[in-house]
Structures are given as C-alpha cells and as structure tokens.
C-alpha cells in the first residue's frame, strides 16, 4: 500500500506507508553562513540570520530569497559562521560596569546652571 494524501504530489510518488527509514546522522550537512543585509548604499550592514550553503556564491544566491525578498535591499554580505570570532558568553561579565560612574555619561555633567548664567550675562550686556 502506498500513501494516499490530500496533496496530489505525495500520492503520485507512490511512497510506502511504512517507510524504510534510515538514521539521518550520516547525512552530510553544508556549513552555515551568517547573512548581513544593507537597506541603503552607505548604511551599515545588519545581521539578519544564517543559512546553509556549500560555498559563498551559493550562500549569496540563497540569502537573497531567505532574507531580502520582502524588505528593500541593495547589498548582501555572507560570512562563514566559522570565521566569526566572538568574545563568548563565558566572558559576558566583561560588559558589566560599576553603576556609580556618572562621570562616564553625558548626564553626569550638570551644565544647565552654567548655561543659564551665560544667557543671563549676555542679556545684561545687550541691554
């Protein structure tokens, strides 16, 4: 008996109802590439995802339909995932900073007093 499906493409393949399934582990997988998408010439390329491809030419061809068929795109970059060097989550703590360093932030500088003083002085001068 072969599979009878509502999908005529499946039915006409005459597939056995009990497939002779083999383990998938020996199937060769292509490497992955990371895809970067640019919406306007001069803008930065933004990472949009990854895909499988055997080489960079195929990666670009496949990336076009995966990642830019809906949004405007002027250029795509692909980079082998293996070529990405990362800081690593084990070092996530390097991004933590002591919270009390207001001098490293623009908001840490109170300048409104000086600005108001300057404005007042100029007003007096022009009077």
């Amino acid at each position, binding site marked *: 008996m072969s599979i009878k499906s509502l999908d005529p493409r499946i039915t006409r393949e005459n597939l056995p109802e009990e497939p002779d399934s083999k383990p998938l582990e020996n199937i060769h997988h292509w490497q992955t590439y990371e895809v970067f998408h640019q919406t306007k010439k001069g803008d930065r390329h933004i990472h949009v995802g990854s895909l499988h491809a055997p080489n960079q*030419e195929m990666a670009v061809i496949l990336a076009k*339909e995966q990642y830019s068929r809906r949004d405007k795109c002027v250029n795509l970059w692909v980079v082998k995932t293996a070529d990405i060097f990362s800081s690593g989550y084990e070092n996530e703590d390097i991004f933590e900073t002591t919270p009390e360093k207001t001098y490293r932030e623009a908001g840490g500088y109170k300048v409104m007093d000086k600005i108001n003083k300057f404005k007042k002085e100029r007003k007096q001068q022009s009077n």
Partner: protein
Amino acid sequence: MKEFNELNDKKTTAIKDLLYRLADDQLILGHRNSEWTGLGPILEEDIAFSSMAQDKLGQSQALYQLLHQIGEDDPDTIAFTRKVNEYKCCHLVEYPIGEYNFSLMRHFLFDMSEAIRFNMLGSSSFEPLAKISKKFKGELKYHTMHAVTWINQLGHGSGNSPAKIQASLDECFPLALGIFEPSGYEDILIGEKIFFGEKELQEKWLEAVIPVLKNANLKIPDIKNIKASYGGRKGIHTEYLKPLIDEMTEVYKIDTKAEW
C-alpha cells in the same frame, strides 16, 4: 483605409499570439516549479525556488492583464478556462518536475531564454509590452544568477552530480529548442518591430547558454542532430499538460465566481 485596418487586425492577432505564448509558458512553468514547495532538497533552496515560481505567476498575470486590455477575457478566465489545445506553451514547461536535477536544468535553459527575450522586448514597438518587459528585468536576472550558480555547482560537484546534471541537459535540450518554435506570425512581428523573432532569440540563447555549460564541464549536445520538440505553440501538447491544468484549475472550477 481598409488595408490599414486589415494590417491592424493582423498585427493585433500577432501580438495576442505572442502574449499567449509568453504568459502560458510562465503560468505552466510557475505552476510546475511550485510543486517543489515543501519538498525541495533543502529548506533554503525550497524557499528560493518557490519564490521564483511565484515570480513566474506574477509575470504571467501581468501579461494576461495586457491581453485583457487588448480585448481578451479577464486574466483568471483566460488562465483557467481555456481548453488544453488553446494553450500556447512549449513542451519544455509541461514536463513533470522529475528529479531536482531535471527541474534545475529546465529552470536554467528556460530562464536564460526569458532573460534574453524580455531584454529584447524592452525595445518593442508595442509600448505596453516594452514597459512590462523592463519591469521583469530584476527578477529574471536573479533567476538566471540562481540557475547559473547551481549548474556550475553541480557540474563541478562530487559523486554522481556531474553525470546527473549532464543527463538532465541531454533530456532537456530537444525540449528547450521547442521554446523557439516559430509562430505563424514571425514576419509581422519582426516587420512591425514588435519582436526580433524566435530564430534570432535562439541564436542569442545558444551564445549565452553554451559558455555556462562548458564552464560547468558539461558536454554540449550535438545541436544539428537534435529534433526540436515542436507543437506547443500550435496547441499540440504532451500528455502531461492536461493533468496539470486539471489539477491547477480544480479549486477555481468549484466556484468560478468566488472572490479571493
């Protein structure tokens, strides 16, 4: 004045015949290629091939719309209700999808012809067609880039890839030559500068596909000794077209007045 009208009628008939040939090729191949949706060899390729199949349907719709503007029925009616022998598609697009190498080779040979054809039609004296043809340019460029990359990949592949893609080339070639079956209107189309004609298109196509095939290490079929698969342009089709049309129109025919 009578002569002028007669010429005009002949010209309109020639344009309609051309548009039907182009649109039917795209509709039928678009439908065929969409049969890979969900069954493609890998997810990424499945999405790319399905998306290109949708491009084909969109392009055929634009051409059916143009036919409607010059007096034919609305696009859905002409796409879905004609008799099999009223379709003007070539045999290449009718064949079942086969194995993926067959579908890829057909996609390569057909879309290379389309890219050249619509580039030529970009300067057609029939302005609405020239305008539409220019709009197809980007999609067709991607389709041929995709096809050329794959053919090159498989031609240089390991294992049985080169032998399989060579076998598909040998199988597809007589069918592909059928794309260029001359219509009964070649003289008027060329004379009126509507289209350069199938003969010139075939020459340009050979100039374009042969270097790609050679580059992919494939053996070029002996063109002089191949019989082109003609008949499609005259409504004589392979046994594969009718089941395709029955399946394609199955839902439409349940309720032809339904609003989608």
